[in-house]
């Protein structure tokens, strides 16, 4: 009984301390969360401010301007928009089916032990630094592709303008391949999680009705995961659009005009910024590179936003259905 008065005595001091502690903890975490948001806002602000000079000179026609000439002080983003679109489209065409297939293998096909090991290895592929992948791309993959991949493609499909021109060890084609390697693990690991979350009863129901595994996958797993797969592909697209270093290493940065050939060199928004920014001399040139960054930022934010919206809507749907 003697314990009770003692605790009661403590209550006053303790209540103050708890009140204070709660406030401090709340304040600290709130400040951190707001700082995170503030950094994001500051990034957008700084990029826009940096581009101001170029915006005043070229306005919105910068986006469609097809000439980038430092000596004449004329700048336009169209060649880089084109390069970004072509390389990331090519990466997606290769990586999306591969990533989905790997996701299926890891979630539906592989035995448990194999699943864990291969899953970890696929994630390691995503952990390879882009500068190392770019180094490999320009010194190993590029020469190999110029000898053994591009010529056969040209022989078979040379009538298509995209496979015209001289095969080379650097260019848009190599950039597309390197980007595909980066996108595959992203699509694969998202798809694996997605497919694993498909209700088992549905899968077993389909199998019990006599469906083969593939019929079950097509009818149940894939068809119920369609929005999630779309989000995975869009996130992969965001990665491909934003990659600067590896692309700069392998794309060649020479002939940056708009052209049909995949074997020619080119430039993307990100690679032009990475390649030219350090050596940039005039204020207008720096501002124009900021303008490119601004365009990249808008595209990057929009793709990510789209993916997040799909993910959120889809998650609430699937949780609701369970």
């Amino acid at each position, binding site marked *: 009984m003697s314990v009770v008065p003692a605790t009661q005595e403590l209550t006053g001091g303790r209540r103050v301390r708890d009140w204070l502690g709660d406030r401090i903890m709340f304040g600290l975490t709130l400040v951190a969360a707001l700082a995170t948001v503030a950094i994001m806002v500051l990034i957008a602000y700084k990029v826009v401010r940096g581009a101001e000079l170029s915006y005043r000179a070229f306005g919105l026609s910068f986006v469609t301007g097809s000439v980038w000439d430092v000596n004449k002080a004329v700048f336009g983003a169209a060649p880089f928009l084109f390069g970004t679109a072509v390389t990331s489209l090519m990466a997606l065409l290769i990586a999306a089916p591969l990533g989905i297939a790997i996701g299926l293998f890891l979630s539906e*096909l592989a035995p448990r032990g194999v699943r864990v090991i291969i899953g970890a290895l696929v994630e390691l592929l995503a952990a390879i630094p882009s500068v190392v992948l770019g180094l490999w791309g320009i010194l190993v993959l590029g020469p190999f592709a110029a000898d053994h991949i591009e010529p056969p493609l040209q022989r078979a499909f040379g009538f298509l303008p995209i496979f015209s021109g001289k095969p080379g060890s650097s260019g848009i084609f190599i950039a597309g391949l390197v980007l595909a*390697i980066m996108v595959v693990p992203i699509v694969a690991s998202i798809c694996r999680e997605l497919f694993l979350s498909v209700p088992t009863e549905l899968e077993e129901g389909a199998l019990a009705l006599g469906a083969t595994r593939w019929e079950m996958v097509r009818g149940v797993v894939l068809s119920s995961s369609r929005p999630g797969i779309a989000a995975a592909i869009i996130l992969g697209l965001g990665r491909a659009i934003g990659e600067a270093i590896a692309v700069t290493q392998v794309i060649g940065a020479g002939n940056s005009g708009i052209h049909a050939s995949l074997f020619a060199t080119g430039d993307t928004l990100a690679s032009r910024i990475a390649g030219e920014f350090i050596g940039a001399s005039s204020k207008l040139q720096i501002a124009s590179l900021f303008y490119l*960054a601004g365009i*990249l930022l808008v595209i990057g934010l929009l793709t990510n936003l789209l993916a997040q919206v799909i993910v959120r809507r889809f998650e609430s749907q699937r949780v609701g259905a369970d």
Partner: protein
Amino acid sequence: MSAVEPALTLRGDARVRRRRIVNRLAESAATIAALAALAVLGIVIFSVAKRGGGELSWGFLTEDLPTFGQTGGGIAPLIVGSAILVGIATAIALPLGVLTALFLSEFAPRRLSAAIQLTIDLMNGLPSVIIGIFVFGLLVYGHTQSGYAGGFALSIVMLPLIARSTQEVLRLVPRAQREAALALGVSRWRIVVGIVLPSALGGILTGTVLAIARAAGETAPLLFTTSIFVNQITSDVRHAMPNIPVQIFIWSESPDPEDHKRAWASAFVLIMFVLVTSLLARLALARTRRKLSR
């Protein structure tokens, strides 16, 4: 009834056989896709090990950078510089990320929480070259390149990673524990400090190690913020710091085959660090998850 009977026989008519073949084809395609990804990983690691492993020596790890045209030399300044840069980044991103995650999981009202969550996800998807150009505009333009600018740029890469992984482990701390403590009259901050953080600590640390492995290989955030550096070991963060990724980039763009050899050897050092740390962290994370969700 007679129409049903053929389907019930175990012999399998042409349609069943075709369905089986299609199934087998689809299964093989998925298996081949997985093997292809493994093959690419193997080829990349093998190339780097073959070309870089041979160049590696004690001198390469401990000597200063070669000056222009000089043979030999080492990458000690790069290793020290990278360690300092990642250290600065961790010192910024770890507290910021953990506190943000705590705010989201313990304090934030729903609406605000959704907005901050979205910001973190968008930050995670930010092209890293934009982080570089942003920090250039904020800290370098009008001043000089510096170690703290590079460290700050890397912290923006790490922040969303740490916040996300922390959120995930916080979610695994059983609700019942928190509610039991609340029912006993324990205050919010004591619950966070005494119950939530201790049980989430392991997960937070492994998440941080993963973020470090990622930041150590990032080039684009450093390219404009700390890329013109001296050849010697330096710890002066007010000036540009040598670092591994940017130097690999510079060497890979050089026409000199000596520089390519150096690039491969440095890539070998970098890739070993990144792969070993991220593999170990992933193993630890899987264990924490199992322990917490039991």
